[in-house]
């Protein structure tokens, strides 16, 4: 079922190639295996309200923008997602799992756009607050200074990513703590800097959790996010977002969680490595094969 093609993520869905819908249909459950209807209703994902009133971000983000952006766009993605996953193997999974599973290793299935946009919008509303802006402190500030040189340099890079994104999409500040997803690969010289802060952008609905990054901050640069308030002036929207709306406390809390998750994974890796080493020591010598034909042909 998994496919190796690395197609451009989140592209134009209208012209999806036929094989995609074929694989998607395979994920759907057989009629006989359907869960009782009540169980599926219970698994429905909810539209989460922003953690503040819809008019409280004014004048930086208007009530009207929130009415449409949260009340229509975000809501429509929740409804479409619930519709598309009902009766499939994705039904009942957590939102994170649905996003990663439906991304389908870069060959997204139909629910991906909606799952990722629900995730992105939940995350976006929580990233901002009335009276936001200012500067972070503590460990977040230390890592920003370590990885970007200064807070202002990070802001510049984030703004540039948001402004130079061609089309609809998102700009992100993420914490990377990737593990090589290759069974026996070991980082030859691990250092604290392997886990670092990075600014990146993603097209349309794509969310960095599909690349195994931990998102810390996101700005929506779809035009619907700012057009009613700022029209074509995306640059004004981006700078107001950073100056007046970002909740650095939330970003800071997310960083703590991301660091803890990375540390937990590192401990798991270490345990597994020690187990593997022990296994190798106890196993028989490995037989080796030499390909004599190859030697012959090279000698000619």
């Amino acid at each position, binding site marked *: 079922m998994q496919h190796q093609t690395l197609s451009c993520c989140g592209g134009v869905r209208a012209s999806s190639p036929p094989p995609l819908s074929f694989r998607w249909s395979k994920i759907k459950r057989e009629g006989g295996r359907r869960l009782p209807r009540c169980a599926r209703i219970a698994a429905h994902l909810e539209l989460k309200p922003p953690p503040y009133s819809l008019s409280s971000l004014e004048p930086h983000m208007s009530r009207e923008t929130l009415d449409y952006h949260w009340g229509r766009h975000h809501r429509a993605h929740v409804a479409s997602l619930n519709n598309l996953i009902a009766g499939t193997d994705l039904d009942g999974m957590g939102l994170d799992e649905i996003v990663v599973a439906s991304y389908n290793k870069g060959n997204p299935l139909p629910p991906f756009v909606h799952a990722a946009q629900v995730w992105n919008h939940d995350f976006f509303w929580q990233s901002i607050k009335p009276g936001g802006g200012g500067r972070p402190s503590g460990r977040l500030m230390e890592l920003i200074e370590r990885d970007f040189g200064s807070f202002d340099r990070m802001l510049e890079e984030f703004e540039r990513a948001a402004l130079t994104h061609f089309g609809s999409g998102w700009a992100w500040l993420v914490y990377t703590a990737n593990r090589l997803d290759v069974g026996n690969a070991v980082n030859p010289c691990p250092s604290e800097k392997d886990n670092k802060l990075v600014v990146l952008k993603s097209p349309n609905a794509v969310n960095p959790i599909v690349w195994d990054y931990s998102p810390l901050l996101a700005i929506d640069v779809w035009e619907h996010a700012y*057009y009613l308030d700022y029209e074509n002036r995306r640059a004004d929207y981006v700078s107001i977002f950073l100056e007046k709306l970002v909740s650095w406390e939330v970003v800071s809390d997310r960083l703590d969680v991301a660091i803890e998750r990375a540390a937990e994974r590192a401990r798991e890796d270490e345990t597994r490595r020690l187990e593997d080493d022990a296994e190798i020591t106890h196993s028989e010598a490995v037989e080796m094969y030499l390909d004599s034909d190859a030697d012959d042909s090279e000698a000619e």
Partner: protein
Amino acid sequence: MALRALLTKRAPTLASGLGPFASAGGSGTGWQGLCHARGLKVAALPDLEYDYGALAPAISGEIMRLHHQKHHKAYVSNYNDALEKLDAAMAKGDVAAVVRLQSAIKFNGGGHINHTIFWKNLKPVNEGGGEPPHATLGWAIDTDFGSLEALVQKMNAEGAALQGSGWVWLALEKERKKLLVETTANQDPLVTKGANLVPLLGIDVWEHAYYLQYKNVKPDYLKNIWKVMNWKYASEVYDSEAA
């Protein structure tokens, strides 16, 4: 090659006539001409052939003003900036810079090409906007899609289903003389979907094309834009390209 017609000296605007793609027939020297001429030919924002408010109520004057004066203008000036940097990079033999500039050229140059067609695709109702195509293009639509209604329905469905920013096109595949519906992402021009595809109609489904008036209800925008569609332009391009 069609690009050549879009390139003009900085000051004068493009003459109206049949539009940029009417002269796209076989020359094939557009880019070479550009490279040889050291006096760099840059793109210019074309004038509209109607007032900003003339397409209302299908498309509001405010949308048209921002769309033309801000969005299209920005594509033109960013394209020209990138072109000047490209010229300098080529003169220096700076391969890395030449390559780095490609995405800005594709995006902004594509934005200029697409919007130049889009303005010609629209026409106020009292000047014939929305009048269905007759003769050759009308027959070709019936042959390839069954009916004009079927074509409109297909383009609306594909436009509504397009995730993110992009365009939906009525295209002529020149060699087979066949009509197709295509979509392109962001500002990719139709030619990125096939070298022999000629755009007859392009509908902008970026949110900036409809948001102030239609908000999240993209299908209503798509339904209403047909009321100001300039089928006369599409027919002229069809006749000159399919001849």
